[in-house]
């Protein structure tokens, strides 16, 4: 992300971010990641609503895990009413 470091004259003032937060992949430090068993998923979207980091994506048909941004908190697995989300190491 920071391959081209800019000088103080080249960046916006006030620490305002000038890149999209999606460019900054923040999911590399979680020991456990959610894995969704799509055969059991009822598409209730509770995981999509509750994920504090928008690391569950709903494409209109299925929910997907976005491991690039997941911090591994496990809220999704804990709250899933049909227990189709498991937290797996890696």
């Amino acid at each position: 992300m920071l391959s081209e470091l800019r000088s103080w004259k080249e960046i916006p003032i006030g620490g305002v971010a000038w890149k999209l937060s999606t460019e900054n992949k923040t999911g590399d430090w979680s020991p456990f990641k959610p894995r969704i068993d799509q055969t059991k998923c009822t598409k209730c979207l509770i995981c999509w609503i509750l994920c504090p980091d928008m690391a569950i994506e709903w494409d209109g048909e299925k929910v997907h895990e976005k491991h690039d941004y997941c911090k591994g908190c496990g809220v999704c697995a804990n709250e899933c009413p049909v227990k189709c989300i498991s937290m797996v190491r890696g």
Partner: protein
Amino acid sequence: MNKIVMGLNGNEAIAFAVKQCDVDVVSAYPITPQTIIVEKFSEFIADGEVKCSFIPVESEHSALSVCVGAAALGARTFTATSSQGLALMWEMLYIASGLRLPIVMAIVNRALSAPINIHCDHSDSMGCRDSCWIQIYCEDAQEAYDAVIQAFKIAEHEDVQLPVMVTIDGFTISHTLQRVEVLPDDVVKRFVGVRKPVEIEIPGMGKVPMILDPENPLTFGSLDLYDYYFEHKVQQHEAIEKSRPVIRKINDEYYEISGRRYGDGFIDGYGLEDAEVAVIVLGSTAGTVRSIVKKLRNKGKKVGVLRLRTFRPFPYREIVDALKDVEVIGVMDRSGAYGGIGGPVYVETLAAFYNSKRKPKIINYIYGLGGRDTPPALIEKMFEELPKLEGGEVKFLGVR
């Protein structure tokens, strides 16, 4: 020139100025001796004299937090506090300046606890020395009124975009009824104008106003580590340096509408043309020192006074230039200097002269802590004593 004269104390003068500056959001928490400012201002709102959101909060930390949020939205914002309240705002002071938000805050100077004391000294605002807030110390209620109007223009200038503190001495200025000339509402409104957010360049978005706006979403206050934090701090350093010509210019522009100016905006000298002994002082004590200088000059003594108006940015070039022929300088500090060379104004003055060719004798007088009175006789004694000193002494004026 339109002349409207009112009888106002320092706090009321500030509230009146804020009312005329078309402020959008005021958030504050009461504390002696500041309370009258926001109390008076809330009356203006209740009476329909000003259209502004007044947000009462549970602490000063929250008051400045509200101002930070409102200013980030593009609002013109104001708050006021004193002493412990300012101490509680400490964390947010750096956030306001770091996010480059042009908030104006009135500080009614009051000693810090412990022991608890409600009277004036400058230890509260001097503690904010390195928070990157511009600091203007006023001498009387008239200047408090004038400085608040100037403060919004300085803070919101495109080259500056930093918060400004306007300070008055607790009780001595804040609670003393004085003659204050005010400007008509429309003159002030035209002078300060409407806050215009600066534009910043964001790749993919182009130039956008630096405010929180759902149409052009920006992230304020995100994590900024060893890769860019330093660059952002250098930007702040640059901004406060750039405030120097702005303060000077606005002092002159204000003269055009009011007929009043305060020296060059930074320092205000009296009797310095031929002075051999001079005193540097800020706040209300400057008037007492000036009266003694007049008295001594009438007796043929070559003495002068330099009133310091801005402590941040510190006008080191202006001071060295104004005192270029002075042999002995007394620097008055109304705050402690525990474990240092001397008080904050003294240390800055020493540093300013270290880089100049001349090396006058410079002596520190710490005075007026906790509101201790500094009567004219004491100032006169200081002028008598100054030529006999070696330089480098730290004296306590008026202590038993």
